[in-house]
C-alpha cells in the first residue's frame, strides 16, 4: 500500500454534537429574548448587548494571546455566550465602560486566570454581574423604562432581568396602576404587589421567550431537566409557603418565577456545564439550593436580587456535591475506596 494510513485510538466514529455547536445553540436560544429587549428598549439595549459580547470576545483573544493558549475560543462561542448572558443581566443604557469592566471580570478574572475554558469554578457572567453591582451600585440599578410605556404587549411596563429596588425604580404606584389591567400568566394581584416587597416585573414577552429558549435547550438535549426543575421547585416551595401563610405580605409563586433573573438563572446560568454538578442527583441538589437561596435572599436578605448570589454560593459547593453524588459503577454497590482493593 503506497499511501499512509491514519492510526488512531478507537472509537473511530464520533457523535454529531461538538462543544462549539452547543455554545452557539445556547446563544441562539437566548437571541429571541435579547431581540425582545432591543424591541422594548431600542438602541440602548443593542449597545449593551453587542458591546458586551464584543468586549468579552476581545478580552478572550487578549487573554489567550497573553497566556499562550490556542485562539480557537473566538469561534467556539464560549466568550460570545458569556457576553450575551452578562448583557442580559445588565440594565439597558449602561455605559460601555462598565460593560468593559464586566467583560474583564468575566473573561479574565473569572475564567482565564483559572485555566480557561472548562476550568472556572464560578459562573463568569454571574460573577461579573455581582462585581458590577457591588462596585457600581448606582448605575447598575438605574432602570430605564421601556419605550412603550403606555402600550406594551401585556398592559404593563416591562423591564428585562430586573429586580426593582423600591427606592430607585419607577414609581411603584405607576406600575401598580398599569398592572391593574389584565395581566398575563397570573401575576400576583394588585394588593399583593402594593403591600408586598416590590420585585421588578419581568417583561412577560421576555419571560415567555426565555422559557421557550429553555424548553428548546431541553428538547435539544443541551441541558437536562434536573437543574431548571429543582431550581424553580425550590423557589416555588418557599414562595408558596410564605404566600399561603401570609398572602398580604408575600406574593405568589408565578410572580416570583417570572420576575428577576429566575428564568434566566434557572435555564441558562445555573445549567452552565462547567460550574454545575456532573451527576443527576447532584444537579437536583444544586438546583434546589439555588432556588431556596434565591428566595431567602429575595425575601429576607439585603438585596432585591437573589438569583446571582444564590448561583455563586452554590457554585462554591459544586465540588463537594460532585464527590458525594457519584453514581456507583456497574457491579459495585458503592464506589471503592482510594487505591481500589478489588481484583
Amino acid at each position: 500500500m503506497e499511501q499512509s494510513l491514519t492510526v488512531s485510538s478507537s472509537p473511530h466514529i464520533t457523535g454529531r454534537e461538538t462543544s462549539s455547536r452547543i455554545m452557539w445553540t445556547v446563544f441562539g436560544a437566548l437571541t429571541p429574548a435579547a431581540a425582545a429587549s432591543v424591541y422594548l428598549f431600542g438602541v440602548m439595549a443593542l449597545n449593551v448587548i453587542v458591546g458586551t459580547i464584543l468586549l468579552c470576545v476581545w478580552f478572550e483573544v487578549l487573554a489567550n494571546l497573553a497566556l499562550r493558549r490556542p485562539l480557537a475560543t473566538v469561534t467556539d462561542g464560549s466568550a460570545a455566550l458569556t457576553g450575551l448572558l452578562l448583557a442580559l443581566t445588565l440594565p439597558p443604557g449602561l455605559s460601555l465602560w462598565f460593560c468593559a469592566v464586566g467583560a474583564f471580570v468575566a473573561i479574565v478574572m473569572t475564567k482565564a486566570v483559572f485555566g480557561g475554558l472548562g476550568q472556572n469554578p464560578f459562573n463568569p457572567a454571574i460573577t461579573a454581574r455581582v462585581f458590577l453591582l457591588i462596585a457600581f451600585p448606582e448605575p447598575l440599578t438605574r432602570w430605564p423604562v421601556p419605550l412603550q410605556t403606555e402600550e406594551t404587549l401585556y398592559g404593563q411596563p416591562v423591564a428585562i432581568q430586573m429586580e426593582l429596588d423600591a427606592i430607585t425604580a419607577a414609581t411603584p404606584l405607576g406600575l401598580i396602576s398599569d398592572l391593574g389591567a389584565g395581566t398575563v400568566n397570573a401575576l400576583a394581584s394588585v394588593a399583593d404587589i402594593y403591600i408586598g416587597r416590590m420585585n421588578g416585573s419581568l417583561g412577560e414577552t421576555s419571560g415567555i421567550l426565555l422559557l421557550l429558549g429553555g424548553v428548546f435547550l431541553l428538547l435539544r438535549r443541551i441541558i437536562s431537566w434536573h437543574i431548571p426543575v429543582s431550581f424553580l421547585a425550590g423557589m416555588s416551595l418557599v414562595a408558596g409557603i410564605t404566600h399561603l401563610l401570609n398572602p398580604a405580605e408575600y406574593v405568589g409563586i408565578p410572580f416570583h418565577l417570572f420576575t428577576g433573573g429566575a428564568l434566566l438563572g434557572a435555564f441558562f446560568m445555573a445549567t452552565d456545564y462547567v460550574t454545575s454538578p456532573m451527576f443527576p442527583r447532584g444537579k437536583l441538589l444544586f438546583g434546589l439550593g439555588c432556588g431556596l437561596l434565591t428566595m431567602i435572599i429575595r425575601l429576607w436578605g439585603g438585596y432585591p436580587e437573589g438569583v446571582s448570589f444564590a448561583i455563586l454560593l452554590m457554585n462554591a459547593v459544586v465540588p463537594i456535591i460532585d464527590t458525594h453524588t457519584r453514581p456507583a459503577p456497574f457491579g459495585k454497590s458503592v464506589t471503592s475506596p482510594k487505591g481500589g482493593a478489588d481484583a
Partner: protein
Amino acid sequence: MAISPLPVPAQLIVPLAQHIGSPATPVVAAGDTVRMGQRIGEPSGFVSVPIHSPVSGTISGIEKRPGPLGSPITCVIIDNDDNDTPETLPPIPDPKAASAADIRSRIRDCGIAGLGGATFPTHIKLSPPANKPIDTVILNGAECEPCLTADHRMLLEHAAEIVSGLQIFLRVTGARCGIIGIEENKPDAIRLFEERCNKTDIRIVPLQVKYPQGGEKQLISAVLRRTVPSGGLPMDVGVVVQNVGTALAVHHAVVCGKPLYERVVTVTGSAVPNPGNFLVRIGTPVHLLLAHCGANGTDIRKLIIGGPMMGFAQYTDDIPVVRGTSGVLAVGAEESALCTTLPCIRCGRCVAVCPMRLVPSEIGVCCDRRLFDHSGTRDALDCMECGCCAFACPSRIPLVQKIRLVKSEVLAARRKERR
C-alpha cells in the same frame, strides 16, 4: 449480504498467538507438508489453545510478521497446494451422549476461542470451578457494533448449527436454561429462531438496539437482570456467555470434528465498493480481502480490524485474518480526519453514556496530569473500552486512549507493589 467463500490465497500467514493466554508453540518446521486442519501449534500452558493449518500445503517458514494489534507476531507461513486435503478429528454425532470432559477437550483440541472478538479460550470458559455452578448459557447474537453483519448472516444461514452449539454448551456446563439474545434490528433472525426453538427450552430474547448491548455484562443485565460484580466474571452470577459464531464453530468441532481454521468476516466501509460477508481462511492477508471487494489501495485512509467503536486501526494492510477478526473496515479521507480537541467542559455526556457508570472525563484529567494514583482512577479498571464516552464527547477528547493509558499505569503500579 449473504456469506460467500473467499478464494483461498496462495500463501497463508498464520499467527501462533490468536487468543488470550499464552501463544501456541510451533510443532512444524520449514519444509513440512501439512493437511487442512492439522495442528501446527501446541497449546503452551493452561490458558492456551492449539493452532491449525487452514490449508493443505508446505510450511514455508516461521517468522515474525506485522500483527493486528500493532506489534509483530510469530507466524507460520504456509504455501497452499490448493488441494484442501482435510484432517479432521473423529466426529461426535450425539453430544448428549458424550461426557462433558470429552466435549471440553474436543473444543480445546479444535482451537475454539471466543469469536466475538475477545478470543478467550472457550474450553476454559466452559470449565468454571465447582463452587460457581452455571444455570444459564446465553448466546450473544447482539452484534451491536455498527457496520458488522457477520453474526446476523450466521444466524440466518446456520440457525440449526447455532442451536446445536448452544445445546452442546448446555450439556458441558450442566446449565438448565439456554437463551439466545438478538438485537431488534434483526427481526428476520428473531423470527427464524423463535420458530425453530418454539417447542424447545431455548428462549429467544429480543434486545433493545443500544450499543454496547453485546457487552457480556450488559447482556446479562438486560436478559437476566443479574449484575456481574466489578472485577468478576459472568460465572459469578451463574452464567456463561458465548458468541453465536463460537457456537457455530463448536458445533463443527464436536459434531463434525472440524478444527477452527476459517471464520466469517464482514468487509465494509466507505472505501469498499463491494462490501460483503465472507467465509475466510485464517491467515488470509487483509489486502486480499480488500482487493476481492474492489477496494482501491489509494482510496483507503484508515483500515480498522473490528468495528468502528472498538476496532483497531492498522498501519499496514499486510496483516492476516485471525480467529478474532470479525470485521475489516476501510474508510476514506473524510471519515479518518482527526478532530481538534477542546478542553473538557464538564458537560457530563460521557458519564451519562458510560455502560459501566464510570466518570471518563475525570479519568481523562488524571491522565493529563499524570495522577495515576489519584482517587479519580480507582474505577478505571472497570472500563471495557467500548468507546461510548469518546463518541459522545463534544470536545472530541480521546477518552478511551487516555483511560487505556491510566489502566496500564495502574496495572503496572500494582505489579510493582506485589514484588
